[in-house]
């Protein structure tokens, strides 16, 4: 079968499967769910996808549903977006961040122990950020002391997404305070049920409790749970952070393209089909959303051809996050006072049509995963090669 024919048949296969298996009417069912109910719904949906063979297309081929080429992965995500399925949020850290870290840097015992559990639904969270270490992640302070064959951890983590449901945590700790800050970091796999782990969900502006604080008091982590060597955790963390390159933003851009339907609905609902100003702003948004789709596609096509220039991912991310903001702002403008009335939030999507909630959620994309400003630094300094500021500022 030619490449194209093969992808077309895969597309048909995924579409047919989704018609039979994707949760129907999930938006109504999810509206007003508690966060815990949402987490359960996510577990169920993940297991359905695992059974269908579409949950881990990026894993190697020994795994059921794994071994998909990037082109095949793209087809699968396009179809998930097209079918407007709930997004996989709860399993994201486990299937991408944890799995890639283990596959790239874990030892055989760790892989054999954890990869099957991830497929069975074990959930993971990421414990990188701290109150004092955000964009400057390498300045993290959460301390680990080696005592025999355990590390004893003391410190605090923050903004850890869905940590309240997690079984395991990808944890970055400081094992050496001398020398370069990157050189004293160690990467551990921490059991969330271990003694001394306290997780507190954080109340967020949209009424959600998506991320958590984590307090670690004398938590013991066995040395065999270390990934890579002691003090070599920074390089491991890079594997974690680059685990997902482009597919999510492509999927999300396509979802936003489909969700332009919601803006169109508002235009009709408010009788503004012939309001030239609104039509122009809508047309501008359409062009921007289409450009976000086009650049996400281009990034993936380049990767399929082995091309990835430094900064490309930053351009894609900032394009998406900006356009997402523009999208929600137009919705708010059209929605008027009604959208200032608090409606229950629907989990599982960023373009829900609850415009204030969508607007607030759009900040996740301009702040997390390397903020918009940090991406600008990358584009300026590494793509445009503008000179870096001298290091070593001291108050």
């Amino acid at each position, binding site marked *: 079968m030619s490449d194209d024919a093969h992808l077309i048949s895969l597309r048909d296969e995924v579409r047919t499967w989704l018609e039979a298996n994707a949760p129907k009417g999930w938006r109504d069912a999810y509206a007003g769910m508690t966060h815990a109910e949402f987490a359960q719904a996510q577990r169920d949906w993940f297991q359905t996808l695992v059974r269908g063979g579409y949950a881990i297309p990026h894993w190697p081929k020994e795994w059921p549903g794994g071994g998909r080429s990037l082109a095949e992965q793209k087809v699968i995500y396009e179809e998930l977006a097209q079918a407007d399925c709930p997004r996989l949020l709860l399993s994201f850290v486990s299937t991408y961040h944890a799995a890639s870290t283990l596959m790239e840097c874990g030892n055989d015992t760790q892989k054999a122990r954890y990869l099957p559990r991830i497929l069975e639904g074990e959930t993971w969270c990421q414990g990188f950020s701290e109150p004092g270490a955000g964009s400057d992640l390498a300045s993290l302070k959460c301390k680990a002391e080696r005592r025999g064959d355990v590390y004893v951890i003391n410190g605090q983590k923050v903004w850890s997404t869905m940590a309240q449901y997690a079984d395991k945590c990808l944890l970055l700790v400081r094992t050496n305070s001398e020398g370069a800050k990157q050189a004293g970091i160690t990467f551990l796999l921490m059991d969330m049920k271990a003694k001394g782990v306290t997780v507190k969900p954080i109340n967020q502006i949209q009424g959600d409790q998506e991320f958590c604080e984590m307090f670690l008091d004398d938590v013991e982590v066995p040395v065999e749970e270390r990934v890579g060597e002691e003090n070599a955790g920074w390089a491991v963390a890079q594997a974690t952070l680059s685990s997902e390159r482009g597919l999510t933003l492509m999927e999300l851009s396509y979802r936003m393209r489909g969700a332009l339907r919601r803006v169109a*609905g508002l235009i009709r609902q408010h009788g503004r089909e012939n309001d030239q100003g609104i039509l122009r702003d*809508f047309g501008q948004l359409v062009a921007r959303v*289409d*450009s976000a789709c086009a650049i996400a596609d281009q990034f993936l096509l380049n990767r399929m051809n082995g091309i990835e220039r430094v900064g490309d991912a930053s351009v894609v991310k900032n394009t998406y996050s900006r356009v997402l903001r523009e999208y929600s702002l137009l919705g708010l403008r059209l929605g008027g006072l009604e959208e200032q009335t608090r409606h229950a939030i629907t989990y599982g999507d960023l373009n829900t049509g609850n415009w204030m909630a969508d607007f607030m959620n759009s900040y996740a994309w301009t702040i997390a995963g390397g903020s918009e*400003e940090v991406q*600008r630094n990358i584009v*300026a300094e590494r793509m*445009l090669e503008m000179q870096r500021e001298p290091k070593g500022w001291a108050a």
Partner: protein
Amino acid sequence: MIELSELQDAASKAFPADQLRPERDAAWQLAAEMGWLMMPVSEEAGGLGLGRDASATVLCEMGRVLGTAPLISALLTVQALGEASELTDQQGWIERACAGEYIAMNLDRATISLGAGDVLDATLPAVPDADMASHTLVFGPEFCALVPLDAPGVTVTERHMWDESRRLFDVTVADHTIEPGMFLAKGAAATAIGDALRTGLVLAVAADSLGGAAACLSMTVEYLKTRRQFDRPLAMFQALKHRCADLKIELGAAEALLWARAGDEAATTTDIGSAKVLACDIFRKIAEEAIQLHGGIGLTDEHMCHLFMKRAMLNLQLGGDLDVWRERAGRQVLASFAD
């Protein structure tokens, strides 16, 4: 099949980035020698049979160097010649046009009346480089024809544009009888040619804008890297870095959209119009910022900043203004979500 990247390489070798505003007549000759005028003509008719993305690729490179030769109009008219159904000696016309005989067309909306006996009265605004053209193509309701610029009743007057990288002329035609063999097409076939010309113009201006935008941004970034104030290169100031990064990011998105649309045969004129919105808007923004970020030198006639700025401002006006395309894109998508 010629790859777009090969075309791009050839164009950037023939017109190196450091030679802005190449002399027009030499540039025109070089473009003809490179075979560019044959790109839009089908292989059966002796052309290269390349798609609209090929023309866009070359035009983008010409935008980069503020190209002065009238390739936007020439590529469109040669394509129209290829699509002609009634033209006498069509093959001869195509050969001459491919070899460098320039057939012009108006880039702004014409006023046209075609009376009994095919007597034409017309005002054709914004005809590029009419001084070097033998004919101009007139496309009106249900007809498309060639008018010799030296015919009696035809006047050609240069407009003095702010943008000196292009020369535009106004052509008027009074009481001119179109010879039967000079019609490219009539009726629906002519309307189709006219539509293709209008769409092609939108794409061409968008491509030119992206080339200009990229060149202007890199010129500006290079300047910031070398200009020192406060004992450091200006490029080190984050306020300036972030402005440049945002321009680069917006340019990247505009480029992605344009190349996706240029390569998509199913893209509607409105879809191309959306690509023009982003392309011309980012060219305007980059050119506007370029002057600011160059400081005083950016206001001098000697520096290239203003040439980019003036071309960016002109491009906004060619091929339909951005608000028109925004509105059409809005209507198109609104209609697509009809339920």
